[in-house]
């Protein structure tokens, strides 16, 4: 039924969320949510608090099972795929409240990102020293040369993560996600709680990740300035439903979006007002 142009577009889509509904008991967290993420884009999911953004992320990660609907990654349905398998497929994420492994150093945290891809088993590690060593050395080189340098965290690589300030922890989390060699990187509020300078740094890193690493980005973010600056596509959630989607400018002008945000205070004004330089 679908003509060639649609197929063309389908090949262009890396993540396809279709009709996803999620409920916790009687509370409907997501209702018939559909949108798609274009390969190589930065797509932002915005919406007032409690709109279901993090629930949506957790559903895509496989932490929650949707009541109905389907999520396809790279043309392959993720139904029945456990989170570790999704990680192997190239789905990486960070968390709103920063989920790092306490008690480990920055380097160990980052190395754990490769866990899903490591082929060395316990026996290999004991017997076939060659393979285990080679894997470890390759990983080390990649992390040291590429990721740590790129994110400018050389000076803290051997520090325990617990001692780091907030902004740096966010960066370590991003580094760990990058080691996973993701094809789709999901960032849950990457600049929440950051000052202007830290926010600008993070925005620059996200843009560079997209350009240099060829990674598609899906992010949840409250910082409207940043969302409007770097996103290609914006999806607006309210009460678990998609109320608008499109380019940043179009979404900003959408009356439904403005209405949804008016109750949320000055976000509404910032959305509908002239964009800050």
């Amino acid at each position, binding site marked *: 039924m679908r003509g060639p142009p649609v197929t063309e577009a389908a090949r262009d889509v890396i993540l396809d969320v279709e009709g996803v509904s999620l409920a916790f008991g009687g509370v409907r967290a997501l209702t018939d949510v559909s949108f798609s993420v274009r390969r190589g884009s930065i797509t932002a999911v915005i919406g007032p608090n409690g709109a279901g953004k993090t629930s949506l992320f957790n559903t895509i990660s496989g932490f929650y099972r949707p009541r109905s609907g389907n999520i396809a990654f790279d043309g392959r349905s993720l139904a029945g795929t456990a989170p*570790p398998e999704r990680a*192997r497929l190239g789905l990486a994420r960070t968390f709103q409240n920063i989920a*790092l*492994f306490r*008690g480990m150093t920055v380097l160990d945290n980052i190395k*754990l990102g490769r*866990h899903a*891809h490591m082929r060395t088993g316990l026996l290999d590690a004991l017997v076939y020293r060659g393979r285990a060593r080679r894997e470890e050395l390759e990983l080390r080189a990649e992390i040291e040369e590429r990721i740590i340098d790129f994110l400018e965290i050389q000076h803290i690589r051997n520090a325990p993560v617990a001692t780091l300030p907030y902004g740096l922890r966010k960066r370590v989390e991003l580094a*760990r996600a990058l080691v996973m060699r993701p094809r789709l990187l999901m960032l849950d509020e990457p600049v929440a709680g950051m000052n202007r300078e830290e926010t600008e740094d993070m925005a620059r890193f996200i843009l560079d990740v997209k350009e240099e690493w060829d990674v598609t980005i899906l992010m949840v973010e409250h910082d409207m300035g940043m969302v409007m600056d770097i996103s290609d596509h914006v999806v607006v959630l309210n009460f678990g439903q998609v109320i608008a989607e499109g380019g940043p400018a179009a979404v900003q002008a959408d009356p439904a979006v403005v209405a949804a945000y008016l109750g949320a205070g000055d976000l509404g004004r910032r959305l509908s007002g002239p964009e800050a330089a």
Partner: protein
Amino acid sequence: MTDWLFLTEVFLAGLGSGALYAVTGVAFVLIYKATRVVNLAIGEILMLGGYAFFGAAAGWHLPAWVALPVAILAGALVGAVVERGLIRPMLGESPISVFMVTIGLGSILAGFVQIVWGADPLRLPEFLPSAPIFIGEAYVAPKVAYGFLAAMVVVTAFVLGLRFSRGGVALKATAADQAAAYSVGIDVPRVFSLSWIVACGVAAGAGVLVGAIGGISPTMGVFGLSVLVVVIVGGLDSMAGALVGGLFIGVVEAFAGTFLGGEYRFLVTFSILILILMVRPYGLFGTHEIERL
């Protein structure tokens, strides 16, 4: 001079029983680390191991080197069933509820062995060499010495395995942050299952050693109480703590039993427990932010 020899013998006997505390403590810590479940049934699983060995060696007349793996496998199987059937469905419930489930499990296991094997204490068939062992001039009961060796081998294997294997890394990551572990591709439910399977297998193996030294009975599960003291002293989530705490409590109990009388052993151990809880509620080696029980 004789006095010193006697003290040395008491000390060595204490190390012997302490090693068994340590290995059971390691099993306890493994489950706690991975799943945050305080498994009070560990003493009963240990007891079940002793009885499984008895059943295989005395009932089926299997040689000891077959009966021991049978006991360990029986423990592992119980661990798998318990994790899947009782603990996994309790995921997300309050820690106290899960704690109560393990207490109930302990009673069920104690009742089960009583139905199958009766309430009277039993002796395990002899399977350890019985030639007396002397360290210097000090005499050590051979069973205690072999128990000590076996326990130390297991504890060492655990500490090394946790540090150097990918499974150990997965366990540490799961212990630190389950969501993060899940998201980097660690199969968290599998870590849960394996930790219960391995821990219960180890506890059952320890039960064979404990039973070989002191015989088996349906009240053998009180061994778990001393192990609880051991892991609280050492820190609920610390393997090294289980080792040090186990040896320490073993030696203290040996001296208390010798100089104050057997009835004072628990008085001394639990006094230490109270002291530790007051001074370092997270144990000697534990992580500070551990929840209180």
